[in-house]
């Protein structure tokens, strides 16, 4: 039974919230701050071997032969495996399983794993890698997605069509052509988004162990324990009940730890083969090759609008550079179009998105999966529409507001929508009215808006079971243990679960402890992606806690011989509302309930309602609730150096109800940081060999604290009817519109429209030169035509 039917957004005890809405510390905050938290690489087991991967130095090649004889002969080497040992294909999307743990027959990018060694230590394993001989037959390497689209031979992945297309989606809603024809204004332009990667500070790591009973335990720095569990069973051909997957503390993920990865299969396989625990920790360079970061996109947009600023239609054609494997690419391709249909209403919309394979590290989901790039293009184009129509950029966004409790043009159900309040807040906080268009040359303000999902009802693999489950176990000490399959990747999901359970059961926070992401102990959750955890796991937690609460209240009501309405659980006590002298600590209340009902526990779950348009792909991007965001970015452009400084960003985000405003503000700040970073500095760039141009934290320029703008996080609480106490997502939405707002601010500062990311100083200078040349040409034209002497 889905929890969405069972509770509303109100405080569980009728009036004010006890725990929710207050700035609590994260439950694991102190452990992380003091270094006590155990990350995967902290795990050391007796007899543990260290494994390393041999990677392809070629972007595209057939493997002719692999000779591992010499490597096996090196003292201290316990196992050497190749693709032949793990030939089963996997992939996070069941329809596009095109990866193997180690390359079988061919390699598809520089860094593709080919063989693995497990040895007594890392140095011995590295030595053995050098002793493996691989003969390659080189193939034409595709580095340009346009070429991959147009050329079918050789194919990177064999397919029936004989081309390099990974996925194509072409959907139209309403009469786009008619609107383009009859609208007062059509703005058309090309936009591009470069690649960027997650840059989580913890590199990927896995440790595998097989015990005497044959139980395989894998500790992995994954953000989706459940999919790793399934993929291991599939690839190792092992019953899933003989596999346990545990996610220890995680040092950031941002989407980059969503796929099952080679190291998980390889360590598991080698632990099986050797009978010893096996660890693999990737180097930073290997993390760059594993990638799964933001897809580069080449986007062509047309926006049709009438004089009043109302958008009549949007028409998009997008070429997506997928890199060498599918990963989440099917979803990416849908998201590139499906998630643009808010926060603005437009009556007609068409998108035609094509993802192609290239011989580069595989792209995947990065914070704001699939929709950050189109959002950039559209919001810059909308700004141009406003400019051409002489409408204030905030005003045009208000005029096109989609509304709440409505539906988008592509059939997505919209519930709460706080977008107008987001616009109001950033407008006021930035003093937009006084400053936009009025700052000295070189300084400017830009605005943009966006929306994002709080999970989707597309469960990756088809099934009718809940998307999120929770179990509660009550101890006679008064402790409530929460078991959740949800992955806390630093976003604070364990904390959120603890807040919700404490709220429902009237407990102090220290009476709730959370065990998460351990497939032996915890009910299934689909993992930390698509901003689904707070919404779905949160609802499941309330569901479970409410069932438990019912038992406790009933036991007390019977004991005190009062109606149940008089019993309240609050602040670690159970109280008779009409006779507050009568109260017992929660511990005693739980003991009473245990005596009355036997061993106490409960389960809760969440599943999405039926959502989405009635067409192929209509459920992808269909979310039970959408978050809304508005950014205003202030810039200073140095017109001599072309450098852009961002002194301040205002971001207002509608997260429904802020369960912990401090965590929401943290997510807003992190998102803004990441968006500005990829717009100005970061570039996941391949050189002419197809080799990552700088796979290190020195050369991949993630901003330092002194490069980070001042960020003002403004929380808008629209209180969603279906969210846990009304909450929606906060982890990904606040990234999107930071980037177009930056471009729009640059336009306000110096009159240039930057449509191609990243905004390097050289591009700024080139655009400024172009503008001056244009102005000079216009001036000479107007001089020569205005020959009439002034009177």
């Amino acid at each position, binding site marked *: 039974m889905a929890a969405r039917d069972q509770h509303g957004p109100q405080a569980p005890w009728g009036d004010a919230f006890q725990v929710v809405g207050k700035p609590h510390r994260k439950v694991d905050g102190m452990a992380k701050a003091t270094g006590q938290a155990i990350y995967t690489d902290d795990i050391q087991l007796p007899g543990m071997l260290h494994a390393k991967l041999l990677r392809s*130095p070629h972007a595209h090649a057939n493997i002719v032969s692999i000779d591992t004889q010499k490597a096996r002969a090196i003292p201290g080497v316990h196992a050497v495996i190749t693709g032949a040992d793990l030939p089963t294909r996997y992939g996070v999307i069941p329809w596009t399983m095109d990866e193997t743990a180690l390359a079988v027959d061919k390699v598809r990018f520089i860094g593709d794993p080919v063989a693995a060694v497990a040895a007594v230590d890392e*140095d011995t394993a590295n030595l053995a890698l050098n002793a493996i001989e691989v003969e390659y037959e080189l193939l034409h390497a595709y580095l340009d997605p346009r070429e991959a689209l147009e050329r079918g031979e050789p194919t990177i992945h064999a397919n029936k069509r004989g081309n390099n297309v990974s996925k194509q989606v072409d959907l139209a809603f309403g009469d786009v052509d008619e609107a383009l024809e009859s609208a007062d204004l059509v703005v058309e332009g090309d936009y591009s988004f470069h690649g960027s990667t997650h840059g989580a500070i913890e590199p990927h790591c896995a440790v595998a162990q097989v015990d005497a009973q044959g139980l395989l335990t894998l500790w992995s720095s994954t953000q989706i324990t459940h999919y790793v569990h399934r993929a291991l069973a599939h690839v190792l051909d092992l019953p899933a009940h003989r596999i346990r997957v545990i996610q220890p503390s995680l040092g950031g993920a941002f989407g980059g730890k969503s796929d099952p990865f080679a190291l998980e299969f390889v360590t598991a396989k080698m632990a099986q083969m050797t009978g010893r625990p096996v660890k693999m*920790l990737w180097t930073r*360079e290997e993390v760059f090759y594993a990638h799964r970061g933001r897809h580069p996109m080449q986007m062509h947009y047309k926006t049709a609008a009438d004089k009043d600023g109302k958008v009549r239609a949007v028409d998009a054609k997008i070429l997506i550079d997928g890199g060498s494997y599918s990963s989440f690419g099917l979803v990416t391709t849908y998201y590139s179009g499906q998630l643009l249909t808010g926060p603005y209403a437009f009556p007609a919309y068409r998108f035609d998105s094509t993802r192609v394979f290239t011989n580069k590290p595989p792209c995947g989901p990065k914070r704001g999966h699939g929709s950050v790039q189109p959002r950039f293009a559209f919001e810059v184009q909308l700004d141009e529409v406003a400019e051409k129509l002489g409408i204030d950029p905030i005003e045009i966004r208000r005029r096109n507001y989609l509304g709440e409790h409505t539906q988008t043009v592509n059939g997505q159900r919209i519930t709460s929508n706080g977008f107008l309040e987001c616009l109001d807040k950033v407008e006021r906080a930035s003093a937009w009215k006084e400053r936009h268009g009025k700052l000295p040359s070189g300084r400017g303000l830009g605005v943009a808006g966006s929306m994002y999902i709080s999970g989707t009802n597309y469960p990756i693999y088809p099934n009718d079971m809940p998307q999120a489950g929770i179990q509660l176990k009550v101890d006679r000490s008064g402790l409530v243990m929460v078991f959740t399959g949800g992955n806390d990747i630093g976003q604070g999901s364990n904390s959120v679960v603890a807040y919700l359970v404490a709220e429902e059961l009237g407990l102090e926070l220290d009476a709730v402890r959370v065990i998460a992401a351990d497939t032996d102990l915890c009910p299934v959750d689909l993992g930390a992606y698509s901003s689904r955890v707070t919404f779905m796991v949160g609802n499941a937690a309330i569901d479970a806690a409410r069932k438990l609460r019912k038992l406790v209240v009933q036991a007390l009501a019977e004991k005190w011989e009062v109606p149940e309405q008089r019993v309240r659980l609050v602040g670690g006590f159970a109280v008779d509302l009409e006779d507050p002298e009568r109260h017992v600590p929660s511990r005693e209340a739980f003991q009473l309930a245990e005596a009355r009902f036997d061993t106490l526990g409960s389960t809760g779950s969440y599943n999405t309602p039926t959502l989405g348009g009635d067409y192929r792909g209509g459920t992808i991007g269909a979310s039970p609730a959408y978050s809304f965001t508005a950014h205003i970015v202030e810039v200073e452009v140095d017109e001599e150096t072309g450098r852009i400084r961002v002194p301040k960003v205002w971001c207002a985000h509608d997260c429904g109800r802020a369960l912990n405003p401090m965590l929401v503000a943290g997510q807003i700040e992190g998102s803004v940081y990441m968006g500005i970073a990829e717009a100005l500095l970061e570039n996941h760039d391949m050189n002419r060999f197809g080799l990552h141009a*700088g796979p290190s934290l020195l050369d991949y320029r993630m901003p*330092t604290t*002194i490069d980070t703008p001042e960020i003002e996080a403004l929380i808008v609480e629209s209180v969603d009817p279906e969210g846990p106490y009304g909450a929606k997502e906060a982890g990904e939405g606040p990234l999107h519109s930071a980037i177009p707002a930056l471009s729009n601010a640059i336009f306000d500062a110096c009159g240039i429209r930057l449509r191609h990311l990243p905004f*390097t*100083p*050289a591009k700024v200078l080139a655009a400024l030169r172009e503008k001056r040349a244009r102005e000079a040409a216009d001036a000479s034209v107007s001089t020569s035509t205005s020959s009439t002497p002034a009177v």
Partner: protein
Amino acid sequence: MLRLPQFELIEPSSLYGALAALAEHGPDAMVLAGGTDLLPNMKHGLFEPRMLVSLAGIEELRGVQVTSEGGLSIGAMTPLADVADHPEVRRRAPALAQAAGLVAGPQLRSMGTLGGNVMLDTRCQWYNQTHFWRQALGFCLKKDGTVCHVVAGGKRCVAAASNDSVPALTTLGASLRFERLGQARTIAIDELWHSDGANNKRTEGGEILTRIEIPATPAGHLGAYGKLRDRGSIDFPLLGMAVRLDLDDQGLVEHADQVVVALVARPVRIKGVHEALLGLRPGSADFEQALVPLAEAARRQCRPMANIPGDEDWRREMVAVFTRRTFLAAAEGASD
């Protein structure tokens, strides 16, 4: 994490002990100062010493002294952070203090040393990479290979001198004291360089850079260091330039100089600077006027290459902008 190759570490407590170890082990041994450049380079397989001779325990190599002539004598093992913060360095050699304070980030400046920065290896985007990475493109002529990826068909390495401290030291007329067992030599810093990026220093085996000597600067000395980099911290220079202005007692320029790094294998002294600014008063319209053709002349003389990251055309354009700005900063007695 990348593995550091195995090596033997010797930690002598005297200079003699270090020199003796180098003499004994010859080319198998390398000198370890702060390690902030050497150790990452060893992880990348760029250097493969069997032995490292650490200078960390040698007290006499640390510290800044003012000489009887009013110059500075700086021990090669003085941390960059100390050079940046030292009041006498800031007063007598402001460009050096600024440059030392702009090397990498705070942690690296407290480990990295001034001597280490002078002896820094040249840098190139095709070279400062892991063994796997370099192997994937068949290596390059600076290490393990025969081709240059910067200049098609190039036979000479063009990796860039990237030492932030060197332009300032050069404008200051610094000299370097090298010692080897039983011998010592002092050379002008100008004389240190080759134009070969594979090995851009004229050093001899068994030598240790022990001191950096800076002659006294006149009362009217001004200096500044301008550093182009993507981020406000950590990065090596995409362009680094030091300028010097010495003013006479009338406040007019009697000596001017400018030296640039992060272009090619050796630092580049800009020609015609002295003549362009001689007799002008910093802050005057004439001075600012003179900077316009000077900036253009500097741009013409500097040819950044695709050796280090960053668009080389943009880097070249920035030579002109930074020339003007760095001289203006020096004129104000303040950093850019």
